[in-house]
Structure formats: structure tokens, C-alpha cells
């Protein structure tokens, strides 16, 4: 501890206060992040370890711009009615079978979450799910929980499915394909296991057959056919560019902006309204966190921590254990607190290990799996969970209400079962996780 300087203590104190404000919700998390960033820059300048320019450079532009572009693309897709259309057809395919409906809805939400923001996906699907269940006369609670949890799991599979993955991919220079190859397999195993577990845990609620699903019609689901074609074409271009962005030497953010530009030219939307649909609060929250952690990094504290951890991880035999430990710690912390601050803090620590000669590739995958799966443990573990809980309350159906205890009764087994499966895949195929 003798190497810990006054600057390190100060920056750590600012980070702890800012994170305490974020987690305690005394202030809105964005306000707390901005407050922390402003204090970190001011104090850093006074003490000489941080500057305004360094704070600007600490913000990962690739993450922020990619998120902004994807938010705008979703904002253009949503009013076309594509999600409504999908939900009605899923209901028809399930033919009133509650178990099939759970599998189909969860699969749809998971697949969409692999490309689009999973929070938006759940925001759109949750009220439709309640409506479907109301018409089929079945309890929407298992479906809402399954959608939230499986969208969290689905989002963990790709570079763009979850903000922590974006940050990890950007920091580790990991391509979309590499993310899909490394994370796709464990996520698929966890997904199948989770669906099986949910069918078992909700066996009583899913036992009774639903009513005839013909009460839902897709005739008026699509509100703008031309707009839908154009936005799907633009999204298709984005997805293709994601697959080849590394070959073309373009950042994922630039790839998404190419698709966005195409959409803007083809659709000519009301720009004021489009910008109004962007979740600026989330973007500023991330920017604030990057600046706070940038200050701690500039003080040298994260390097010091990295050197301590490097002693453990330098031994190749211990690398697997370090990765598993990181995955479980990340998951358990993500279940109780926001996983973004944890991810933002861990990224420079892991990057610091690289300079000590540690192969950090397995740690990136462990971190991504941990923060991706941990959010399922509690109702506050992920934003999608909060939306599912809120929708269950708004439904006005007493049997649908998801209480924190009810969530944990399902969420904790799902989280731990998912972690066990992911750990098994990580251990059995560790060689695969040692590369990027």
C-alpha cells in the first residue's frame, strides 16, 4: 500500500462517492455520473493528475456513437409496426400452447436483442405480451420474466447486443465476428438451459392451454410498409457491415452510421422527432462514467491494481481460475448493481494486465459472460427486468404481479444455472477463449 499516492486515494474517493450516488439512487444515475466527472476533472486539474483534454479522450466515442446510431435506427423501425406484426404471428404459430408461446416469444426477443438494444425490445414486446396473454386467458408473468431474462442472455452473444459488450469490444479491439464466435456458443448453451429451466419452474402456470389466438389480427399491424422496407434494408446493411467491419478496417460505430445515413436518405424522417427519441440520458451516463474512470486511471491507481492482479493471472495455470473468478464476481455484482460502472472500471484494469505480459483474451470473454448473465438475478439487475416488472403491475392482473421476491425465486436459479453452464463451457473449451 506504500505505493498508493495521495492522487490515487483522492481519485478513488471521488469514484466511490459517484458510484454510491449512482447505486443508492440518491441522484439520477446520469446526474451522479456528470457530477462525478466534473469533480474528477476539477480535482484532477488541481492536483495535476488529470486534465480536461484527458477526460475528453477517456470517453469511448465508438461506444457512444454506435449506441446513438442504433437508438435512432430502432426509433425509425418501431413506428412501422414490425414488432406488432412479429408478435401476432408468433401467437398464431404457438396455436394457444403456453409452452410454445414462451419458447417462441423468448426466441424472438433474444434474436432481436442480438442486434438491437434489448431494453427497447422488451419495452415493445412486454405490453404486447400482456395483451396476448389477456386474450389467451393465461398469466403473463412467466412470459414477461422469460422475455427480460432471455433478452439479457441473447444480448450477451454479440458485440452490439449489450452496452458492456460494446465497451469490451471497443477497448479490446474485438470484431463483431470474433464476439459472435466466442460468445455465441456459451450463450446458446445458456439460452437452451435457461428455457428448459423456466419451463420447469413455471410448469404450473404453463400447464393450462390458452384460448384461440385468432382474437389477434395482423391486418393493421404494419403501419408503414414502405418505411419498413427501407429501414429493414438499412438495418440489413448495418448487419452486413458488422460482419465485415474488421476486414474493411471500419469501426462498428462508423458501420452503424453508414446504415443510419442510408435510412435518413431513404425515409427522410422528422429529425427533431428522431433526435427526441434518442436516450441522451444513457449516453451522458456512459460518457460521465468514462471520464470518472479515466481520472482514476490517470492517477495510476488502476495500473497498480493491475500489477497486483497480474501476479495471479501471469501463471498460465491460474488464468482459467482468474477468468472464472472474474466471471462469477462480475455476475454477482451485476445482479445487485448496475453492470455498466463495473464494466467501465474493469476495462482499464484488464488492459493494464496486458502490459504485464498476461493474455487478457480469456478475461474479456469472462467479463462479458459475467455481466451478461448476472443481470438476471434480481429485478434491479437489468433495465429490461424493471420494464417487465412495471408492465406486470400496469396489467392490473393480480396474478401477473412480479414482486422482488418472486423475481429472485426464479432469477437466482436462472442466474446460477446460467453461470454454471457458462463456466462449464469456458472450462471445457478454454483454448477457444484464449484468443480474440
Amino acid at each position, binding site marked *: 500500500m506504500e505505493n498508493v499516492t495521495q492522487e490515487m486515494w483522492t481519485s478513488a474517493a471521488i469514484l466511490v462517492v459517484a458510484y454510491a450516488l449512482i447505486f443508492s439512487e440518491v441522484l439520477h444515475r446520469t446526474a451522479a455520473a456528470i457530477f462525478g466527472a466534473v469533480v474528477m476533472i476539477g480535482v484532477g486539474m488541481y492536483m495535476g493528475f488529470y486534465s480536461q483534454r484527458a477526460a475528453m479522450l477517456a470517453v469511448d466515442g465508438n461506444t457512444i456513437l454506435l449506441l446513438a446510431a442504433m437508438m435512432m435506427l430502432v426509433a425509425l423501425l418501431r413506428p412501422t409496426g414490425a414488432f*406488432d406484426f412479429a*408478435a*401476432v404471428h408468433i401467437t398464431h404459430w404457438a396455436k394457444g400452447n403456453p409452452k410454445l408461446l414462451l419458447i417462441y416469444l423468448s426466441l424472438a426477443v433474444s434474436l432481436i436483442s442480438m442486434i438491437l438494444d434489448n431494453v427497447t425490445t422488451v419495452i415493445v414486446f412486454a*405490453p*404486447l405480451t*400482456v*395483451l396476448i396473454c*389477456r*386474450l389467451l*386467458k393465461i398469466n403473463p408473468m412467466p412470459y414477461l420474466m422469460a422475455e427480460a431474462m432471455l433478452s439479457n442472455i441473447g444480448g450477451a452473444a454479440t458485440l452490439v447486443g449489450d452496452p458492456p459488450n460494446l465497451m469490451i469490444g471497443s477497448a479490446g479491439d474485438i470484431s463483431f465476428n470474433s464476439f459472435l464466435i466466442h460468445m455465441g456458443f456459451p450463450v446458446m448453451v445458456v439460452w437452451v438451459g435457461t428455457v428448459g429451466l423456466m419451463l420447469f419452474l413455471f410448469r404450473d402456470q404453463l400447464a393450462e392451454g390458452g384460448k384461440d389466438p*385468432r*382474437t*389477434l*389480427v*395482423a391486418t*393493421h*399491424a404494419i*403501419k408503414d410498409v414502405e418505411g419498413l422496407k427501407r429501414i429493414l434494408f438499412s438495418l440489413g446493411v448495418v448487419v452486413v457491415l458488422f460482419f465485415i467491419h474488421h476486414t474493411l478496417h471500419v469501426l462498428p460505430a462508423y458501420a452503424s452510421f453508414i446504415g443510419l445515413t442510408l435510412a435518413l436518405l431513404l425515409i427522410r424522417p422528422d429529425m427533431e422527432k428522431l433526435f427526441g427519441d434518442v436516450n441522451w440520458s444513457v449516453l451522458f451516463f456512459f460518457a460521465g462514467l468514462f471520464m470518472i474512470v479515466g481520472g482514476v486511471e490517470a492517477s495510476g491507481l488502476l495500473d497498480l491494481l493491475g500489477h497486483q492482479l497480474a501476479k495471479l493471472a501471469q501463471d498460465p495455470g491460474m488464468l482459467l481460475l482468474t477468468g472464472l473468478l472474474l466471471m462469477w464476481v462480475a455476475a454477482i455484482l451485476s445482479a445487485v448493481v448496475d453492470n455498466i460502472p463495473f464494466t467501465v472500471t474493469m476495462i482499464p484494469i484488464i488492459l493494464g494486465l496486458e502490459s504485464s505480459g498476461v493474455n487478457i483474451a480469456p478475461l474479456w470473454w469472462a467479463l462479458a459472460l459475467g455481466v451478461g448473465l448476472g443481470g438476471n438475478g434480481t429485478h434491479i439487475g437489468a433495465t429490461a427486468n424493471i420494464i417487465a416488472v412495471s*408492465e406486470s403491475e*400496469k*396489467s*392490473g*392482473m393480480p396474478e401477473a404481479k412480479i414482486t422482488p421476491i418472486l423475481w429472485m425465486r426464479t432469477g437466482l436459479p436462472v442466474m446460477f444455472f446460467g453461470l454454471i453452464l457458462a463456466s462449464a463451457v469456458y472450462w471445457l473449451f478454454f483454448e477457444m477463449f484464449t484468443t480474440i
Partner: protein
Amino acid sequence: MKIKHISIPTKVARPGMLVGEVMTECVEKDVPGIPFVDAEGNLSGRFSVRHLFLLCCIPQDIIQGAHLLGDDIEDLDFPHIRADELMARKVDEFIFPDVIRLSPNFQAIKALAIMEQYNTEYLFVTEGDDYQGVVTRLSIAKAIVTKVCCVE
């Protein structure tokens, strides 16, 4: 055209009144809502038919997916829709605290502009604490059609 000439006098809702009584007043006077006067005699809120329906009869998911509903939904069993039970409930739990008041000397054009600004169909006309009536878009339209607008 001043709104004092076109406002519709109504009773007010008071603490302890039943939803049925208040609804009846709205239906009889053809107004979307009436003011609520609390135990101290202050005009402290409003009863709105639209908000009553929103609270009790139409869940948010139905509103969002209304365009997806087929014609064959007559067996939808909303636990909310139990008219007798609803009419027998106290009006106090359905009162909204936001009240927009207008002076009787306001011009109708100003009333229409305020209705647009607040996305509402009706406003209350008060002179100090004295409630005089409700002015609605339809009452203004009726005044135009029946030439009451020429009265000054």
C-alpha cells in the same frame, strides 16, 4: 365571444359522492368532466370521464395493441368492467389534482388555444373562488352555430 356566455353550469363533485352520481351529472350536462370541491370548500381537482375509463376499463396494453384486436373479442373478461361496482365507489379516488381555470371574461379563442395547449376538451370557468361552469369545444361550436357568438 366571451366564455361567460357559453359556459355550461354544472354541479360540482364533493368528497363522499359516488361515481354514479358524478357520472350522471356529466352525462346530463353533456360535459367531459366537472370540478371537485374538497371539504374546505376549495376547488382542488377534477373528475374526468376519460380518465375514469383509462383507470378502470382500458389497460395500457389494450390501448397499445388496439389495432391488433380482432372482431371476436366479446368474451374478453376485464375484471375492471363491473359497472355497478364502479358506480358505487367513492369519487374521491378518481380525482385528478390538475385544474385549469379561466376567467368568465376570457375570449373563446383564448379558451380554444388553452385547450390545445393542455390537450383537453374542457376547462372550468371561475370568478375568484366562485365556480360558474364548464366550457367545452362543443359548447363553443354550438355558440357559433346558434349565433350566440354575436352576443356581447
